[in-house]
């Protein structure tokens, strides 16, 4: 007789998926854009990236130990690495070391562990940290270095990069500037027209990502490729990215057609700021997005609308992080009202009526 084994009902076989598999797939999809960003901004960016990711892992382990749990198996699920990674991607590439550490602390401790850890948080931890940093340290978070690729003669070397990371930037004016969106915002405030503002704008360079911006958000192209690959892998669904990007495109398109000197074109909207990163990697975060297809369409459209509104009429040049947090807060509401119809019942949950034959 076979000895008593753990009894269980339900599916005895399962799909080949696990939490860590999902997390590492997402990281893999982020890798090309990240590598490009690191190449683009050189050693200081690499320093910041390593500091942010490792401090995210450190804070995760710290919280787990504090609650008396084994840290290693939870770390291995990759969620802390992913949070740190996403946060690092959205930071200015040459930000000082403490921005990464404080950001990771906010993301992991306040954004995730105080809610009860993985799967319990209301807000996307990386975006929460990004917004908290932006409001607390506006100077550091809006200092955008020029494109200075690795191994170029003008770019900072390894030793110089430690100086930038650990004791801050000197001669700011020579090495930094504004992002496309930031530049447009300031020029608008001086009543310039778009045709003047965008004299030097190159669409191709912006699509590839050869421009000032967050560490790994500049390359719309690589982010889209990574995102499409994730959809093909079945890790994320198309609903949120498509509805988000479509909403922005339609809104921007309508306003641009009405007044092409005061409203930026949809093309520029799509390939600037954190648009692609947010659409494919942050808005699609399982934990903080609705769990029905219809709900996800609403969520994506809401994010798109808010991004457009904040970018166009808000005080900040980029509103993606704010938009995500606002829609995160609306997610429980969306899930409450948009539910799948149960078989044999109508939308309100009453049994269907027997059709008269």
């Amino acid at each position: 007789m076979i000895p008593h084994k753990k009894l269980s009902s339900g599916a005895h076989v399962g799909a080949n998926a696990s939490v860590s598999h999902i997390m590492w797939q997402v990281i893999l999809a982020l890798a090309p854009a990240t590598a490009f960003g690191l190449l683009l901004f050189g050693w200081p960016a690499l320093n910041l990236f390593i500091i942010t990711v490792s401090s995210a892992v450190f804070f995760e382990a710290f919280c787990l130990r504090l609650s008396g749990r084994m840290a290693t198996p939870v770390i291995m699920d990759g969620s802390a690495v992913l949070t740190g990674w996403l946060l690092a991607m959205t930071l200015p590439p040459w930000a000082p070391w403490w921005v990464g550490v404080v950001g990771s602390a906010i993301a992991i401790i306040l954004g995730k562990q105080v809610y009860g850890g993985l799967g319990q948080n209301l807000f996307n931890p990386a975006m929460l940290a990004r917004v908290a940093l932006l409001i607390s340290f506006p100077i550091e978070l809006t200092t955008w270095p020029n494109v200075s690729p690795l191994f170029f003669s003008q770019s900072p070397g390894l030793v110089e990069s430690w100086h930038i990371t650990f004791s801050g930037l000197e001669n700011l004016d020579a090495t930094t500037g504004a992002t496309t969106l930031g530049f447009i915002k300031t020029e608008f405030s001086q009543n310039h027209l778009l045709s003047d503002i965008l004299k030097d704008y190159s669409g191709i360079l912006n699509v590839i990502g050869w421009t000032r911006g967050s560490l790994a958000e500049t390359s719309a192209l690589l982010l889209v490729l990574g995102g499409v690959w994730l959809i093909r892998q079945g890790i994320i669904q198309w609903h949120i990215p498509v509805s988000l990007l479509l909403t922005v495109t339609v809104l921007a398109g309508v306003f641009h057609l009405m007044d092409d000197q005061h409203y930026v074109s949809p093309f520029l909207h799509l390939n600037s700021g954190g648009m692609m990163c947010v659409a494919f990697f942050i808005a699609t975060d399982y934990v903080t997005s609705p769990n029905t297809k219809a709900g996800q369409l609403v969520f994506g459209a809401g994010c798109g609308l808010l991004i457009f509104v904040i970018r166009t009429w808000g005080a900040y040049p980029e509103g993606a992080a704010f938009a995500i947090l606002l829609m995160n807060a609306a997610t429980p509401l969306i899930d409450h009202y948009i539910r799948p119809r149960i078989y044999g019942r109508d939308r309100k949950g009453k049994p269907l009526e027997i059709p008269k034959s």
Partner: protein
Amino acid sequence: MLSFLSKPRIRGGIHAEENKAATATQPIIYNFPLPEKLYIPLQQHVGKPAEPLIRVGDKVLKGQLLAYSQGMISAPVHAPSSGIILDVNDYPAPHPSALPIRMIVLETDGKDEWIPVQVPLDPFQLAPEDISLRVGAAGIVGMGGATFPTAVKLNMGRENHIDTLIINGAECEPYLSCDDRLMQERAEQIIDGVRLMLHGMESRDAINRFSTKAVVAIEDNKPQAYLAMQEAAKSYPLIKVIQIPTRYPMGWDRQLIRYVTGKEVPVGCRSSEIGVTIHNVGTAHAVHKAIRHGQPLVSRVITVSGGAVGRPMNVEVPLGTLISELFNFCQVNTEQTARIIMGGPMMGDSLPHTGLPTVKATSGILALTASELKSTDEQPCIRCASCVTVCPAGLRPLDMANNIRINQLDIAVDIGLKDCISCGCCSYICPSNIPLVQYFKYASGEVAARQQAQHKSEQTKRLIDTRNARMERIARQQLEEEQARIAAKKERERLKAEQEALA
């Protein structure tokens, strides 16, 4: 494009690794050695258990009635072979709990001698009621696993306007291939069974006379079964054989009904109320055997498969055969066996040991190795909503599970716990290995227990209330009688005084 639009939508579901080839490519084995002892449970169906009418020591023949059906929804039990009744007592049930239930133990004599039977020359001359009487007397129940008495379903079919009889040949569970083989090898008998069922559902009432059509639905991963069935059905215009997409749980009756007819069965209704009834191919075959050959349901084809099985096969065994004998015959490696499952790997129950009998519902016995099983390393829910996507019933398993975890069973019921069909899709897909179906089964049991407890306490309260009322009434009566007696005494004394005064 138009055909795409007209195709009914299949909701949810999964596509698991099939693992059917090992058994689906070999013919059904018929030479299973007759076991020395058969353990025949009195309840192998939905409804009331059958009542035994034999005594210990009785000699019985194969097919002889051992226990008769009781009540409206029940089914009789027959002797799977000839021999002597050893015992009628409680033995472990083929259920995860292996709690004892009443069984008849039959010691076989090796002759396998049939009881003499009479069969009608032309069953189509029989009255439809006669067909369902014979089906009922043969102890036939739904062979797909639901084990609802077939005769009751046929009767409901006569009482309602049935326009479509669906024969479920989906066999969507991985590993299982007994229906597939049955359709390949005995297509004509199955089609004959379908015709007999159609006849059995004919209404006498001229106004209600419908020409019910039959649709045999087979998943498109069984092309040979489809061809065989189509060949067998080609001279009967009322019977259509169709292919349906391979997607678990296509064989869920309500999913299949929606796919084939486009109609949805309302919650709380039987499918016959919307004019559809559904039977398994195995049931149709059993009906054929009962009507044409007078043989009651005493054996069935079982798939024995899984990584630990040396000789995976489909084998016809007498009901009541112990799983251990089946495993010996199929050379199951007990060391490698990590879990024994009765039924398919999606909805089947795991059994604690092999000393349990096979019953009418047993479509398969699986001996799975540890590497085939889903990991039990449970991780936190990451709200990936895969379970919402795959749920064929349109539920939100993650919300239900979260509420069950914090003991909010009422909320779980509100959001659809009772509409769960335990198909296992959510457990299958969950990347965090959360045993969702286990949660739901636990919660359903707990809700039922609580309702029972509440019912009981209400009953008790009512009894107390009535007792109090009765006591009050008695006290009041006694008081009234006392007062009446005092009044009468006073009256007597007054009269006496008056008389004395007069005197």
